[in-house]
């Protein structure tokens, strides 16, 4: 897919003047990741640079095996890079210990995976409350803010339902709510719509978009160009390198051009 695209729009630095006056929520610098060694060595990431600012949703696209998931796991501190820096809210997470990393995940970073995001033993509200409860906030307080978050997103009626009593789309929306509960404002979503039909997927992305408009920063990994269209920026990965980076306006035309080409 990406190789068919014209390499014209390589000027993202210029485009974000307004945002660059703020600190990026996430900053990846010269990130590399090598899996295995010797004959089985895989270069999942080769020198990736990426910054995500508050209010921004960045889509990451690329063929299977291009390193998208690896990028997200390293950005969220679930995996460590072979070299390079990962700065979340001003902290270089490659240098902090296991405990601080866990604390950072509780307070700053939210994940949304393709499916089975919610802890089956907990209701929607309890799932959202969990990161704060683990942080030592009382169950009652954490629940109040969780229910408030659900209501703000129009999901109030789901509060006391268990994951197996919710549809896939509802589960994903609750997962997004959890990813941004409390002080968290970085959401890393790895194909959050992968298991949904496209209409439900749109509603999930609409929510993600709304949260970013409200000030969160997000990375969205997706295979679907129509979902990437919700992003401010699209980053194309191929064999672990960023091969292209476009603004949404350009991405829209690119994607429609691509659609026309097929």
């Amino acid at each position, binding site marked *: 897919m990406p190789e068919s695209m014209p390499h014209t729009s390589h000027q993202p630095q210029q485009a974000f003047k307004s945002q660059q006056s703020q600190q990026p929520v996430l900053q990846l610098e010269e990130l590399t990741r090598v899996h295995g060694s010797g004959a089985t060595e895989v270069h999942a990431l080769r020198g990736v640079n990426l910054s995500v600012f508050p209010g921004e949703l960045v889509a990451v696209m690329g063929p299977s095996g291009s390193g998208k998931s690896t990028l997200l*796991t390293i950005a*969220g501190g*679930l*995996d460590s890079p072979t070299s390079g820096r990962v700065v979340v809210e001003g902290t270089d997470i490659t240098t902090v210990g*296991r*405990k601080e990393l*866990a*604390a*950072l*995940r*509780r*307070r700053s970073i*939210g*994940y949304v*995976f393709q499916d*089975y*995001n*919610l*802890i*089956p*033993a*907990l209701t929607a509200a*309890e799932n959202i*409350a*969990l*990161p704060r*409860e*683990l*942080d*030592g*906030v*009382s*169950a009652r307080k*954490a629940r109040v803010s969780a229910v408030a978050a659900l209501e703000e997103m129009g999901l109030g009626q789901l509060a006391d339902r268990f994951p197996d009593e919710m549809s896939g789309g509802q589960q994903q929306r609750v997962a997004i709510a*959890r990813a941004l509960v409390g002080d968290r404002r970085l959401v890393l979503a790895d194909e959050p719509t992968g298991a949904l039909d496209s209409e439900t997927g749109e509603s999930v992305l609409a929510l993600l978009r709304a949260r970013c408009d409200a000030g969160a920063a997000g990375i969205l990994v997706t295979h679907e160009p129509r979902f990437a269209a919700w992003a401010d920026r699209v980053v194309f990965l191929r064999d672990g390198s960023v091969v292209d980076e476009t603004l949404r306006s350009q991405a829209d035309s690119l994607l429609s051009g691509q659609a026309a080409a097929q």
Partner: protein
Amino acid sequence: MNHWYHSWVAAVRIARRDAWRFKGRSSLVLAMIALPILGVSAADLTLRSAELSTEQQMERDLGAADARVSDPGMGGVPIHQSPDGRNYMTVENFDNKPWPDGSADIRAAFPAGAKILKDTSGSGKLRTEHGLLNTVIHELDATDPMAKGLMTLGQGRFPDKAGEIAATAHFLETSGLEVGSELTARGLATEYRIVGSYELPGALKSDEVLARPGTFLAPLDKALKADGLPGTAAGSTYLVSVDGDGFTWNMVKKANAHGAVVTSRAVALAPPADSEVPLHQRDDWSDYEQSTAARTAELAAIGTVVGLAMLEICLLAGPAFAVGARRSRRQLGLVGANGGDRRHIRAIVLSGGLVIGFAAAVVGTALGLLLTFVLRPLLEDYMGQRFGSFDVRPLELLGIGLLAVLTGLLAAIVPAVTASRQTVLASLTGRRGVRRSSRVLPVVGLIATGLGIAITLFGATATDSIVIVAGGSALAELGIVALTPALVGLFGKLGGWLPLSPRLALRDAVRNRGRTPPPSPPCWPPWRARSPWRRTPPATTYSSAPPTRHGCRTVR
């Protein structure tokens, strides 16, 4: 305020719901823990209920009387006795003289105006359906108000004239006779008709018949002696009722001056101070109550047995928790992705143990109570005595319940630590992390096993200590547990020649060594060890034999 326990609240919530979601696995572990708890709580309840209060004990010993006066058979020389009447010695020192012998003038020992009921018993061989049965023959006017409480009437009535007897239910059972049967004793032609059955609440299993005073023992004794046979060896004690404050300590001391020993309800309920007990003031008196050393040894033994039992349960229940943690990997991974630290993951798996342990405590003690309640008649039969009352000790049951909780927690420790060591990513993706089998563990296991066996053998042969034996067994067992993964791996290598399905099973075991339970534990049952508390207590020069019901006591 932020507190660590808030995260435990969340962990317990997850564990509780999970336990409920996987009912099968939970109930298996629950049963493993609850069963011994049921047994222990039922045993506690039974023993406590069988234990009598002083009032209850006195009722069984004295009936409705105030005291029982007995003659120690020392010719009426003055004596000193302990308040409970179990120990006594002569006032004078007879070390260099012949011991006094013969009966005392017991009537002189009774307080003026007291009501007296003579209580005599001896023994004889009675003819039953199955042959001769050596039986206690008891002579007492059971219809006297003073005798109330000594025996409980079952069927029929107590004898009210010569030629009638009542018999204990146990005697009827063993003899094959019944109320209405005729009965004779060997050596006496007289026939006695059984008119009722009764039981002795403190000795359900005693074979005894009851006749009116003078109607059985005397004729039988005479007939036996005439034939040159040993007599009935009858002896008497006296139930005494006095007006006023009962048989006071002062009255007891007066009776002692006439050579009689007294068991008094009033004294038992309010024992005199040591300074008022001449026996306790004597230089040559020492208290041979259970020594603290024996008590410590007993406690150590109980502790060891409980500890070993908990170890076994942990080893059996541990793999169940390991399987649970493996099954809920993704869930634990999600907790990790949401900022769950290692301690949070540990807390969740440990909470599984906590929740099940708690449930097992509740279920176990509740069933223990219920079963004891329902099976009370059977238990009383088994114990050979009626319960004083249904004696529930909340603190002891709480302690027993805590043992269940502790067991659950202990069983979950290893799975909890293992689960917390997994990286979040490995848990989420279901990838197995690279896991080297430890090289240290088998060596440690081997050493522990060897050492444990050595200690056990040493303990069993060279010492008397159950603690050493049990400690050695526990060590050897833990050693074998540590060796298990290595052993399973070894068998896996040897398994190539097996047919397909056992080979697959073996390979599965090899790949999941953590949840493969250890082989059946090596058992050196603690009761094999020679136990220190069974040794006979130090001999005393005083009679400290428990009083027979009718108080015939002899001094060595």
